[in-house]
């Protein structure tokens, strides 16, 4: 007797519905793994910081990173960095470096400042590829480094193809 179902609509050989379902479950399991497992090629944040500070461990405090905790659109995220510094010839901020460790290019920007800035206070707009920790490292003319960071949740990430 002939089947009422056209042979064209048969399941492809070797890929049963059960296999598809099982594969899907496995894929979901993979996606639920911590991000480390997926992105082995990302450099750890400590390494990124050590590279720009030439190995020195930056101190906390004296620097404020103002960034929203939740952003809808990663294509433009307002950030403001303030460093407590007298900004004199002897004691000023040399530069402020911004790092996003989950961006394809983690080094986002570097602000070069000097005593003629008067205040160490800068702001800009960033592009974030994923929810992550944004870090600001400032180099002081007295030789030390200071660091501040902020966790940001990004609802719509930048770096989607075509976006």
């Amino acid at each position, binding site marked *: 007797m002939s089947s009422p179902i056209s042979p064209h609509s048969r399941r492809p050989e070797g890929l049963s519905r059960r296999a598809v379902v099982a594969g899907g479950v496995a894929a979901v399991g993979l996606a639920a793994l911590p991000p480390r497992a997926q992105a082995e090629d990302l450099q750890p944040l400590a390494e990124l910081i050590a590279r720009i500070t030439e190995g020195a461990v930056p101190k906390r405090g004296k620097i404020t990173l103002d960034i929203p905790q939740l952003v809808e659109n990663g*294509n*433009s*995220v*307002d950030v403001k960095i303030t460093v407590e510094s007298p900004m004199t010839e002897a004691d000023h901020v040399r530069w402020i470096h*911004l790092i*996003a460790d989950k*961006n*394809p*290019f*983690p*080094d*986002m*920007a*570097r*602000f*070069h*400042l*000097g005593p*003629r*800035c*008067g*205040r160490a*206070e*800068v*702001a*800009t*707009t*960033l*592009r*974030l590829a994923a929810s992550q920790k944004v870090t600001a490292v400032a180099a002081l003319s007295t030789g030390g480094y200071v660091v501040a960071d902020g966790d940001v949740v990004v609802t719509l990430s*930048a*770096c989607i*193809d*075509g976006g």
Partner: protein
Amino acid sequence: MPFNARITMPAEARAGDIIEIRVLTRHPMDRGGQSDGKGGTVPRMILNRLTATYSGEQVFRLDMNTGISANPFVSFTTRAVASGDIVFEWREDGGATYTRTARLVVT
């Protein structure tokens, strides 16, 4: 090339005052790598540097990478020392430069 800059700062200041300068630039800041729909990829084309020169000295410089958004906004401060032009210069991938000036009168 669509480039346009809006510089917001006070027109005059007292000597020694710290003024805030806000710069909003119109630029696509193409990070590169997207498909161009014809089998290739879009090349990177961003403004990679902004410098501000005031009374004979560079007072501010921003090195930008792809992590800076399209139509970037930047704000910074400087101490008013003498009447004169503040010269802003952007450098684009490929070597093009754009220059704008803003006049500050110091009393």
